[in-house]
């Protein structure tokens, strides 16, 4: 009987990813097992196949895919790993669906420290575990130094849509109400704060969070009155509402006073010359729904930890130009147009 070949343990503390970790050989297998499988641990990964097999639910399913290139990789309140899990879950949840499974592909730059890779993987595992949505399959590639900014993560997620639910932008009608689940701009400002050397008296954290629990509560309270939901990530609330307006052939009128913004976010935006309406969020949603259900759904949201600051911020109106207009706190009117160009570098 031959002894099992001696396998040196990964030097997590000082080791770095090198090209051998991407070549498909023993080194790669070790990286995957010791870092990814360990962190993401679930029955599918334990079986060690290239694909994950599961039974499919009856009825409609949704599938989504996302790429994560955030810089810096670690920011107050999260990192690229937890962001990837939350963001993908949220895309599924915006369709009203229950998220079921995730996959994750890692493109890692040669020289990336193993300690950081482990930190990211562990964070993903924790996020997936807390959300109850496992990462059942994945892939790893290593590229030469300079060809990836540390690590890029691509994900796919699938979910099951509860019977009868069919959310879509083209269902919006004039008179429908717009609900925002909480404060704007937390994520973008938290990420920017690291870059711009701002410091905060009370720690301002990214709002990165999985919204499927909140969505489930909303669907229960008034699912058949919901028209559409979106999470305002890149480009902020402004981009999301402009997209919805274009697709549904209506306009929006918002009330600035009704939009919740934390004082620190308002102050940081003031200092940096940013508008919270354009800043990315990673744990918020916008829902458009029939007026008669607005108060009920709002009440349901406010009982959920991720919806405490939820508010009705405006309504859909007839408008061939699809403008998003806002009555300012000052009393005058303004438009909330698309963002032009790039305001914040890589925040998702």
């Amino acid at each position, binding site marked *: 009987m031959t002894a099992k070949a001696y396998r040196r343990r990964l030097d997590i503390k000082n080791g770095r990813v090198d090209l051998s970790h991407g070549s498909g050989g023993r080194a790669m297998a070790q990286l995957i097992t010791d870092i990814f499988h360990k962190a993401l641990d679930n029955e599918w990964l334990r079986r060690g196949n290239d694909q994950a097999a599961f039974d499919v639910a009856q009825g409609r399913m949704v599938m989504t895919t996302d790429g994560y290139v955030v810089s810096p990789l670690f920011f107050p309140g999260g990192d690229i790993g937890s962001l990837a899990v939350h963001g993908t879950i949220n895309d599924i949840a915006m369709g009203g669906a229950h998220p079921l499974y995730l996959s994750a592909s890692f493109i890692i730059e040669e020289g990336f420290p193993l300690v950081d890779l482990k930190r990211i993987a562990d964070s993903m595992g924790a996020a997936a575990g807390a959300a109850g949505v496992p990462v059942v399959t994945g892939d790893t590639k290593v590229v030469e130094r300079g060809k990836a900014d540390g690590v890029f993560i691509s994900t796919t997620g699938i979910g099951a849509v509860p019977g009868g639910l069919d959310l879509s932008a083209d269902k919006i009608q004039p008179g429908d109400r717009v609900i925002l689940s909480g404060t704007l701009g937390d994520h973008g400002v938290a990420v920017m704060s690291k870059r711009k050397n701002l410091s905060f008296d009370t720690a301002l954290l990214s709002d990165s969070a999985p919204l499927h629990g909140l969505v489930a509560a909303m669907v229960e309270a008034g699912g058949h009155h919901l028209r559409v939901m979106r999470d305002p990530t890149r480009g902020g609330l402004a981009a999301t509402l402009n997209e919805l307006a274009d697709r549904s052939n209506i306009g929006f009128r918002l009330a600035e006073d009704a939009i919740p913004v934390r004082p620190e976010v308002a102050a940081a935006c003031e200092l940096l010359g940013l508008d919270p309406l354009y800043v990315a969020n990673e744990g918020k949603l916008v829902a458009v729904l029939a007026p008669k259900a607005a108060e009920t759904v709002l009440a349901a949201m406010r009982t959920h930890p991720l919806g405490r600051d939820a508010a009705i911020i405006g309504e859909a109106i007839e408008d061939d*130009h699809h403008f998003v207009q806002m009555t*300012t706190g000052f009393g005058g009117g*303004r*438009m909330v147009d698309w963002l*032009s*160009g790039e305001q914040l570098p890589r925040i998702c």
Partner: protein
Amino acid sequence: MKYIDEYRDGRIAQTFARQIAGEVKAGASYRLIEFCGGHTHAISRFGIADLLPANVRMIHGPGCPVCVLPVGRIDMAIGLAIRPEVTLCTYGDLMRVPGSQGASLLKTKAAGADIRMVYSTLDAVRIAEAEPSREVVFFAIGFETTTPPTALAIRLAAAKGLKNFSVFCNHVLTPAAIQSILESPEVRTLGRVRVDGFIGPSHVSTIIGTQPYEFFAEEFGKPVVVTGFEPLDVLQAILMLVRQVNEGRHEVENQYVRAVTRDGNAIAKREVAEFFEPRKSFVWRGLGVVPYSGLRLKQAYAAFDAELRFELADAGGEDNPACECGAILRGVKTPTECKLFGKLCTPDTPMGSCMVSSEGACAAHWTYGRFRDRARSAA
């Protein structure tokens, strides 16, 4: 936010709106021009136009330093940036300003040039110190507000003995801007705007004080009110101007007493005088040549002058012939009167500089105000 929120109080705004409406004379017209980018932005962002009676018109003048930067100067900056040894540091606003042939710093960066956005001139000096092998050039623009920060950067670089730091200077002077609105060689082609009063700039006035405006009030017989940049400041100033017009006065009044004095900031003025001197003439985008309107580094600091260090020649680029930025900057035309507005020229595809900076009249109108055009054309 202290000293900010109080000046954005909606209820006080309503009081001012009623007072202004009560004091304007029927049949009289009040055309008030502001030439401070901060005011252009505040008026649009807070929707101040909605609070004013129809006979009070706010006109945006050339208060946006990005907007008045000529095509040729952008081309020169691009030329600098593509040199392999150069690191060009710039304020964010300049990245998308169109140069000749649709080039821009943003596109040049995409092609591989080392262009870095900085928030403060100190950041540029820090980069020069940290990377001695790079030739760090700071792309300096702005009216009197940003000139002292550039002066301090040169002072700091000199104190640190940095040999790899220089400034590409495009600083311009506010009194010259006012002059160009009222009287300039281009008046015949671009027209003269009828102005009843001036909203004087806020930040610039903290530096130069209220004194420089006394000449204009006297010479042209128009009232000037130096104004803070919060929306209530603007409304209060409008009320003050309406009163001056009604009473036939043309004085310089200071609404921004909490930050502006008659003499301004002596330290800042001294710093600027140490490092800069006026150029005989400088070209402004859309306005042509304006005498004694721009600054360059003094001879003693030639070592920090990027134009000398890199032997830059003025490229003299051309504006798009259909672009009305010139007339718009002088308040003679509105953005919607430009054929390119909203069609070929949008914030994503700017043809002229008024569309690029958030303080530019066209960008401000597009981003915040164009929903009103529909109401006007329907009426």
